[in-house]
C-alpha cells in the first residue's frame, strides 16, 4: 500500500478510536474496553508464541497474577490502583523470570506443559486461600480511577494499549526482535551464529508475562471484580484464538483478531453458549487452511492485486 494512504488510514483510525466514546453507548464502550484488554493480551502472547515459537499456556495466569497482586494491594495496603498495576506488573515479571528459568531450557512441549501446570497451580491456590483471595466468589477491588467513568477508563486503557503496542513494535523491529525470529525459525542455526537461544527466549517470556500482568491488573480494576476465571483455560483459549485467527507472527494480526472476535461475540450473543464453539471452529479452519491467519489472507490478496 502506498505510504500516503497508510498514513491517512492510520489517522482516520486514530480519530475514530478517539471519538468512539462520544457516540457509542455505555454498552459498546464496555465492549471497546474489553477489546483493548484482549488486544494487549493477544499482542503480548503473540510476541512470545508468534515471534519466538514458544506456546505458553500461562499467559492468562500472568494476567491473573497482575490482577490479584494489584487488587490485594489495593484492599490490604490501600495502594492506588495505578500504582498497584505497576506492582502487579513487577510481580508478574518476577514470576515469569522464575518460571522461565525453570522451563525454558527444556523448550517446546515441555514449556507448554509446565506453563499449563503453573497456571493450574495458581488457580488452585486462589480457590483455596479463600480467606485471602475470596476464592471463586471473586475479589471486589476499587475502580481504576478515583471516580467511576467508563469514558476515562477507555482513554486510560487505550493509552496503555497504545504504549504496549509501541513497545512490542519497537522490540520486533530491534535486534532483539530479529533474534526472536531467528530462534523461532531455526534455533540450531541461530545458536551457531552466536545467539544465546535460552537468554533470547527468556527475554521474550519475561517481557510478554510482564505485559500480561499489566493488562490483567487494569482489567481487574476496570471490572472491580477479580475471579479465578481470569486464570482459566477459557480466557487462554480466547487469547490464543485471537492471535491464531488474526495471524500469528504479525504485528497487526492480534489487533485485527481481537476486534473481529470481540465484536463478533457481541453480535452473536443471543446464541450465548455457542459462540465459543463458533470461535473454535473458525480457529480450527484458520489453523488448517490459512495458517497465517486473516493477515496472511489479506497480504496474499494485496499481493495478488498488485501483481
Amino acid at each position, binding site marked *: 500500500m502506498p505510504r500516503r494512504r497508510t498514513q491517512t488510514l492510520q489517522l482516520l483510525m486514530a480519530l475514530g478510536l478517539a471519538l468512539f466514546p462520544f457516540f457509542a453507548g455505555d454498552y459498546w464502550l464496555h465492549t471497546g474496553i474489553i477489546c483493548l484488554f484482549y488486544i494487549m493480551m493477544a499482542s503480548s502472547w503473540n510476541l512470545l508464541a508468534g515471534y519466538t515459537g514458544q506456546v505458553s499456556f500461562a499467559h492468562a495466569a500472568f494476567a491473573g497474577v497482575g490482577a490479584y497482586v494489584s487488587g490485594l494491594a489495593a484492599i490490604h495496603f490501600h495502594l492506588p490502583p495505578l500504582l498497584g498495576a505497576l506492582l502487579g506488573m513487577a510481580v508478574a515479571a518476577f514470576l515469569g523470570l522464575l518460571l522461565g528459568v525453570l522451563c525454558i531450557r527444556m523448550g517446546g512441549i515441555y514449556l507448554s506443559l509446565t506453563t499449563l501446570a503453573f497456571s493450574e497451580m495458581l488457580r488452585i491456590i486462589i480457590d483455596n486461600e479463600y480467606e485471602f483471595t475470596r476464592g471463586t466468589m471473586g475479589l471486589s477491588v476499587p475502580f481504576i480511577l478515583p471516580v467511576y467513568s467508563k469514558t476515562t477508563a477507555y482513554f486510560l486503557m487505550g493509552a496503555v494499549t497504545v504504549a504496549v503496542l509501541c513497545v512490542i513494535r519497537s522490540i520486533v523491529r530491534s*535486534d532483539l526482535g530479529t*533474534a526472536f525470529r531467528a530462534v523461532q525459525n*531455526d534455533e*540450531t542455526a*541461530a*545458536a*551457531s551464529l*552466536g*545467539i544465546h537461544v535460552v537468554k533470547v527466549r527468556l527475554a521474550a517470556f519475561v517481557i510478554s508475562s510482564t505485559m500480561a500482568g499489566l493488562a490483567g491488573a487494569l482489567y481487574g480494576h476496570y471490572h472491580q471484580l477479580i475471579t479465578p476465571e481470569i486464570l482459566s483455560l477459557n480466557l487462554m483459549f480466547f487469547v490464543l484464538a485471537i492471535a491464531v485467527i488474526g495471524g500469528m507472527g504479525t504485528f497487526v494480526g492480534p489487533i485485527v483478531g481481537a476486534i473481529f472476535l470481540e465484536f463478533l461475540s457481541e453480535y452473536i450473543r443471543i446464541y450465548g453458549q455457542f459462540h465459543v464453539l463458533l470461535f473454535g471452529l473458525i480457529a480450527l479452519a484458520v489453523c488448517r487452511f490459512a495458517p497465517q491467519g486473516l493477515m496472511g489472507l489479506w497480504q496474499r490478496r494485496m499481493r495478488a492485486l498488485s501483481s
Partner: protein
Amino acid sequence: MAFLEVQNVVKRFGGLVAVAGVSFEIEPGRIVGLIGPNGAGKTTLFNLIAGTFPCDEGAIRFCGEDLTRSRPYHVCRKGIARTFQIARPFHEMTCYENVVVGLIGRDGFRGETEARRRRVEELLEFVGLKDFMHTEARHLNLIQKKLLEIARALATRPKLVLLDEVLGGLNTGEILKALDLIRAIRDRFGVTILWIEHVMGALMQVVERLLVLDRGRLLCEGEPAAVVKDPRVIEAYLGEADD
C-alpha cells in the same frame, strides 16, 4: 599453541559410536578438506567442534582456549562459524536479516547503523546475493541458500569456518564459481577453512591438506595428492562402492 586442536574426541549415540577417538590439528590460514565415506562421522565431528553436541570424551582447543564443553553460541563468539549439510537459512526472514543475525550474534544487540548496513551489503555482494537482499530466504534456490549461509557465517567475523558440503548438486560452471568463492573467503577475510565435501575432483583443486575419516576414525591425513593414493583410503572408498 595450535590454532585448532582436536584431541581424541569420542561421540556415542546409544550403542553406535559415531566418532571413535579422532585427533588432529589445523594451522591457521589453510584450506583443509575433510572426506570420508557416508556415515564416517564427518558431520558429527563438525557438530562436536561447533558445540551442537557435547563430546563424550576428548578435548577441543581453539587458539589456546578450551572449547570442549562450550555451547554453540559461545563457540561462535570465539570465532568458529559453520554452515550446514542441508542448508538452514532462516526461511521466513530476508537475506538481509539472515546476515544481520550473524552480526548481532557476534557483537550483541547494537542496533542498525550505517556501517552495519554497508557491511551486510558487502557480504551479500561478496557471495553474489545482492539482488536478493530483500527476498525471504525460502524463495531462494538450493545454491543461493548455501551462499546465504556462507555470508551469514562470515558475518560473525570468524577465524575458522566449517563448510559442510557446498558443492552438491552444482554443475561444472557453478562449481568453478564456488571454488573461486572459497578461495576468496580465505584470501579476502583471512579465514581458515575446514571443508567436508563429496565432489572430490573439485575439492582437490583447492585444499592444501586432506583429512580422511572412516567409521569414526581418522584414517590418514596429509598432502591431497599423497592421501588419495593411500591404499587404505582407496579401500575405504571401494568398500563403500561395494555396499
